[in-house]
């Protein structure tokens, strides 16, 4: 009996065969096959630098693949893709680096899709706002549509990028680490939207280093390692540790590392307050201690860090370093006192994008690596750079390449290298693993422990409760600008801690 063509299965959203991409000496992708079914939520997993973002850029025509690639979108074969063609074929992307327009308003950024096209049309700002409002409503989030995008904190910019992808009637949406700087509730809202999209037949390719999320949302996961395909697996029956094993080729032990701090008190905070940001904060930090600080985004954690790093001034209270009162007028003072700060927003605060990896890594220690007469010593620079890049296992081509060519997670490691090179006494780590893969996370926390063993006092800020649970000696819970609780991870269960924080 002949088959009725109308009842045939819909074509796959995407089929890629033999995708290869070499940048200079780095093979970003090597003969990768990748497929997504219509309406499927498919996860793309892999360590930093494994080629996830590059794959997305090839499908969307930002990069051209090396010859021999086969690309089929909704059953149609394409020999060459341009960004416009990809958009018209029904593809939308939430870029890892957001690719938004800081000088334009939130409304224009979200409804940017409606401004595209070569034939000029008149712009209706009222319609732009309506479009933007509708997209935000789907996420159940309210933002000031007239605000300049560049004035928003990173988490809100991320939301704008997500809303932008929802404006078009895309049938295939790539989301490259959309949750990296979102709170739990915002993440939940996004995951709910992803499910609705998928129910409506929209395929979603989801990239995240938060494996719990991956297993929750996706039906299948494609794993890349070093630009090569490891395999495609159903998430049914998959565990986080199995997945990280597939991504890295090794397995990681997960155990609480807390212990009693033995060293002398280094930092003492007494009744520190700053109007509208944090209120009556007191705690102590000892040499050799890793103090965790968790809470939802907006709890005042980052604001507190800014004050401890001299970027803002508290209204009241005292900061004592080694028993002496500290007046920080600027972050330069803080650096001089041996305080280092790894910020959550590496794109804006951490790195000078067009400069080389090496230059960025030594940016904060220029004085120390200077030789006679204040000139930079090439040898010292090279020694410092290669030491830290090796310690942190940063995957790079050449130290001379611009930082902007690194994958997102590797950029984060360069930021860390930059600050570790200052050999600080107090290290403030503000969400140090945003966008960093499991293997590198383990590596970063191993280093954090080693630094503590060498006598550093470390404040570890994170909104991922498991992170502080596993890696801190004590955990402070911050909410609404105040510290409301303190835990000892050895005497608490992770579930209880998570319940309290995400409540």
């Amino acid at each position: 009996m002949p088959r009725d063509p109308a009842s045939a299965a819909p074509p796959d959203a995407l089929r890629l065969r033999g995708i290869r991409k070499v940048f200079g000496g780095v093979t970003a992708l090597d003969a990768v096959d990748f497929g997504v079914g219509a309406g499927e939520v498919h996860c793309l997993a892999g360590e930093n630098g494994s080629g996830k973002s590059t794959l997305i850029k090839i499908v969307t025509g930002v990069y051209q693949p090396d010859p021999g690639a086969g690309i089929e979108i909704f059953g149609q074969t394409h020999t060459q893709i341009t960004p416009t063609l990809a958009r018209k074929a029904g593809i939308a992307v939430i870029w890892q680096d957001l690719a938004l327009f800081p000088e334009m308003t939130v409304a224009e950024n979200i409804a940017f899709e409606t401004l595209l096209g070569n034939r000029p049309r008149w712009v209706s700002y009222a319609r732009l706002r309506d479009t933007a409002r509708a997209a935000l409503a789907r996420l159940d989030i309210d933002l000031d549509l007239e605000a300049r995008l560049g004035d928003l904190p990173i988490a809100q910019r991320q939301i704008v990028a997500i809303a932008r992808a929802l404006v078009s009637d895309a049938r295939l949406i790539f989301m490259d680490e959309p949750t990296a700087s979102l709170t739990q509730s915002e993440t939940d809202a996004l995951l709910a939207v992803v499910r609705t999209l998928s129910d409506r037949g929209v395929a979603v390719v989801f990239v995240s280093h938060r494996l719990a999320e991956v297993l929750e949302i996706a039906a299948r996961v494609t794993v890349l390692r070093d630009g090569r395909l490891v395999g495609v697996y159903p998430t049914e029956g998959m565990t986080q540790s199995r997945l990280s094993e597939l991504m890295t080729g090794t397995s990681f032990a997960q155990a609480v590392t807390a212990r009693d701090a033995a060293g002398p008190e280094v930092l003492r905070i007494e009744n520190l307050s700053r109007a509208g940001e944090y209120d009556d904060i007191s705690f102590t930090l000892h040499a050799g201690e890793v103090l965790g600080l968790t809470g939802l985004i907006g709890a005042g954690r980052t604001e507190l860090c800014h004050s401890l790093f001299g970027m803002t001034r508290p209204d009241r209270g005292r900061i004592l370093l080694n028993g002496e009162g500290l007046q920080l007028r600027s972050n330069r003072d803080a650096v001089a006192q041996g305080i280092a700060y790894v910020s959550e927003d590496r794109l804006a605060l951490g790195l000078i994008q067009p400069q080389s990896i090496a230059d960025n890594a030594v940016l904060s220690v220029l004085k120390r690596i200077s030789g006679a007469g204040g000139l930079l010593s090439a040898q010292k620079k090279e020694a410092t750079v290669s030491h830290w890049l090796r310690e942190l296992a940063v995957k790079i081509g050449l130290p001379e390449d611009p930082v902007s060519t690194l994958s997102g997670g590797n950029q984060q490691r360069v930021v860390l290298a930059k600050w570790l090179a200052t050999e600080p006494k107090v290290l403030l780590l503000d969400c140090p693993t945003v966008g960093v893969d499991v293997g590198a996370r383990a590596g970063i926390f191993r280093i954090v422990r080693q630094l503590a063993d060498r006598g550093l006092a470390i404040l570890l800020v994170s909104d991922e409760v498991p992170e502080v649970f596993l890696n801190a000696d004590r955990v402070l819970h911050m909410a609404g600008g105040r510290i409301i609780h303190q835990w000892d991870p050895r005497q608490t269960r992770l579930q209880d801690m998570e319940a309290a924080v995400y409540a």
Partner: protein
Amino acid sequence: MHSFLRAYPTEAKLFVVLILISTGLSLASPDFLTLVNVTSLLNNNAVNVIWAVGLLVVLIAGGIDISFAVAASVVQYLCVYAFAAIGGGNWAIGFLFAGTFGLALGLINAFLIHQFRIISIVVTISTFNAFFGLLMFFSSGRFLYNLPSWWSSRVILWEYQTASGTWAELILPVAVMAAAMFATWALIRRTTTGRQLYAFGDNPEGARRAGISIGRMQAIAFGWSGMMAGIAGLMQTQITKEVVPNALIGRELEVLAAVVLGGARLGGGRGSVLGCFLGVLLVAVTQNGLNLLGVSPYAFKMVVGIIILLAISTSNLDPSRLFRGAAR
């Protein structure tokens, strides 16, 4: 009001400064706030504003143009010969020719920038020199007085005899300036193409990934600047009544300074027509005021330099913040 301040903080600040300076000048000199002086300020700065709105579009798209003033001189010469060749011409043909010649010169810039991936400042410094060299070579530095009479005689749109017997008047360049401002405003604020120009200047990689054609953006930005330069060249003879090859060279930096003063950002993504107008006006009013006060003209440029430094160093002061704070 609040939303205007928020969207246009620089323009609002500039406006306040302009009012303050004007008030001060009208107190210091009785000649400043007179109909005759104000209209002549407008007449004499119309050409600068026409250039400024053309340059604005280039700055918004993240480029810079040094060649427009020289391009205006080139267009003047081309026009003289073209009008002679067709036996005279009239205003309609004049605008058509001047606009087209200017556009063509602008497209040369765009082509060089896009095709060879050279940054715009290098390209336009080169074309600035090339245009000027060619112009001096072919004109041998000669002045041209034999312009068609429709072109060289002043078109007075409005005049008024004041009580003292002197005439206040507005001439054609002022109307053309208004039209150029309106057209540029419509382009950059009201069309999708204009918003793409902002986006491209703001984040070129983001624009590229969204599928915006970079070559097209360059062509529109530099084409617009060239076209405005051509029209400005056509208008200049309303003031000088003759064509001199090296009359306009050097004006580009003055205009660039005024546009940056008006809030356009070197680097792209920001700037408005209103800001351009206020920027040109502020520089003009200051010079005019110093002139009326009898200050040496050599001091003008220094004072203008100081104003720009002040404007840029206070650009972090955002007046809308004051209102936002109060509203909380």
